[in-house]
């Protein structure tokens, strides 16, 4: 034995055996808070918001025609669903967003993957894609009308060009971040370029691609109203447009509400897809 084992070194300076005081402060760095707090705070913000809104209307701070109170909006929402067949419009809008977004993904994912993988592809497309990100989508409505007519295709095309450029950029950035060592591993195991692409680059970037999709789906919802203003016979945006023509602001607000709820719902859905599709990921959101 070169060391001496000493078991109890308790000596001077022993602290009194008082139970430690758990410090629970309201503002603590990066400290997780109890789930109950989250829920309470999350509800609190909405209560504050709706409360303030109703109060502002009640106090007549603003014009009631232009800013009806939340109760009136909910009432309008009920009427729209119960009597005006609004549900059908919602379905049509959801279909438009989903379909156009699906198309955008079908183009952006392969292109983004190729751009992220091969510098040559990137050098070719990147200047083009970056410039088109600034595209003011509404300005393209006349061209889209001409090319696609006044039907659904035109609206789908508008939603498509509203998100495609950002989507490509995000995806190619994520693919660029695939660790080089994963690719090198596959190559030294005898993988051909096509095999590496299929068995490494794609699965490695898929989780982050899904996150990019979630972000851009949110943007797609903000374009819905613009897309459905033009030549729309149905859809949430068309209903809001008509409501505007006859100054039914409560219906417009109801439409905004529905879009918000739908957006959150699909965000939640994609979160779940992420969870279930990538069970192998470390505990990330």
């Amino acid at each position, binding site marked *: 034995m070169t060391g001496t084992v000493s078991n109890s070194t308790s000596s001077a300076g022993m602290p009194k055996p008082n139970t430690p005081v758990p410090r629970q402060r309201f503002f603590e760095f990066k400290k997780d808070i109890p789930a109950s707090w989250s829920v309470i705070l999350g509800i609190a913000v909405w209560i504050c918001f709706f409360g303030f809104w109703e109060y502002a209307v009640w106090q007549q701070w603003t*014009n*009631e*025609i*232009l800013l009806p109170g939340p109760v009136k909006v909910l009432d309008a929402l009920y009427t729209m669903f119960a009597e005006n067949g609004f549900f059908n419009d919602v379905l049509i809008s959801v279909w438009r967003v989903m379909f156009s977004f699906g198309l955008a993904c079908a183009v952006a994912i392969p292109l983004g993957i190729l751009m992220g993988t091969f510098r040559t592809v990137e050098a070719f497309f990147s200047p083009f894609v970056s410039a088109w990100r600034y595209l003011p989508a509404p300005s393209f*409505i*006349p061209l889209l*009308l*001409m*090319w696609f*007519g*006044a039907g659904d295709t035109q609206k789908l095309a508008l939603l498509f060009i509203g998100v495609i450029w950002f989507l490509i950029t995000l995806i190619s950035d994520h693919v660029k971040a695939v660790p080089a060592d994963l690719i090198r591993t596959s190559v030294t195991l005898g993988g051909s370029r096509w095999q590496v692409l299929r068995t490494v680059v794609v699965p490695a970037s898929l989780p982050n691609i899904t996150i990019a999709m979630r972000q851009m789906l949110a943007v797609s919802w903000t374009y819905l109203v613009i897309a459905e*203003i*033009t*030549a*729309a*016979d149905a859809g949430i945006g*068309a*209903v809001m*447009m*008509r409501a*505007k*023509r*006859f*100054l039914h602001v409560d219906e417009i607000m109801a439409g905004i509400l529905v879009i918000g709820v739908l957006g959150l719902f699909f965000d939640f859905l994609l979160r779940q897809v992420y969870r279930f599709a990538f069970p192998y990921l470390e505990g990330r959101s």
Partner: protein
Amino acid sequence: AEKVKISGFTWPGYGFWHIAIEKGLAPDLDLQYQTIEDPYESFNLVAAGQMDVVSSTAEFTPVGVESGLPIKLVAFGNLSYGTDKIVAGPGINSAQDLVGKEVAVLEGGLSQIFVAMWLEQNGLAYDSVTYRNIIADDAFAAMIGGGVAASEFWEPYGANTLKALDGSSVLAQSKEPYWLQQGVVADGHYMTETFVTERRDTARKTLKAMYDAISWWQDNPTEGNQIIADGMKMSVADVELVLGKDGSRTDGGLYVYDFVEAAQFCGSAPGNPPFEQTNGQINDHWNLVSEWWVKFKLIKSVQAPDKGIECDLHRELYDAGYRG
């Protein structure tokens, strides 16, 4: 049946297309009405050869012609009969009070001419105010928010503004005899050149179907308004606000021309249209509007009316004995 593509924005004045469709008034045509809220997008579709008929406000033709758009104004559809108003905010009681202030109009639209003519009528220069491009949908909010002193409105914005904004008042409205006589604030129906020339028979049938619908509506105003409300997806109350309840054409905000009146305005039938308008006044209207666009520097020169107006369809119908 032959397909005819028609478009217009959500406005009861164009609702007769729905009646024509619903009641099968053009049995051998397949009329398809498409709601397109921005008329300029309808004209884009015309340029692309994807639209045959467009219903819109009546002032567009000179602009379209100068841009080379293959389009003709074939009919004056209706006259604003009180639905359009110039409403002033609190403290503004006369044209004089408006000098140097901002007025909300649809730039390059009828309402701009309406305001400009009204200023001149009151002895002021047309450019003594600043025109702000705010459509009536938004102008209501803009007036409440301040910033614009007056605005040209159609219903229901005018009535709502008067109700919501204390001290607001009407400076002018389209029901006044002068405006009715001038016929400035009006809707028209446009057809593409190819449609008019190459499918003339169809074009005639299409026009006839619309006048049949107007007659039918005059006889069945309640059911007609219901069809229009359903077709435009608006409430019956909103339709009645514009078209009236009884088919008399004078209990709403719009006066709808029947076939003979429209033909007279076009100069395609003998006699004078109502409101002391003259036979063939459509050409004067063309010149008036064109001159204003030149003043506003939106087109370069006034062209001959026949470049943008086609009144022979009415004449042929009239000659064939049709009377609406």
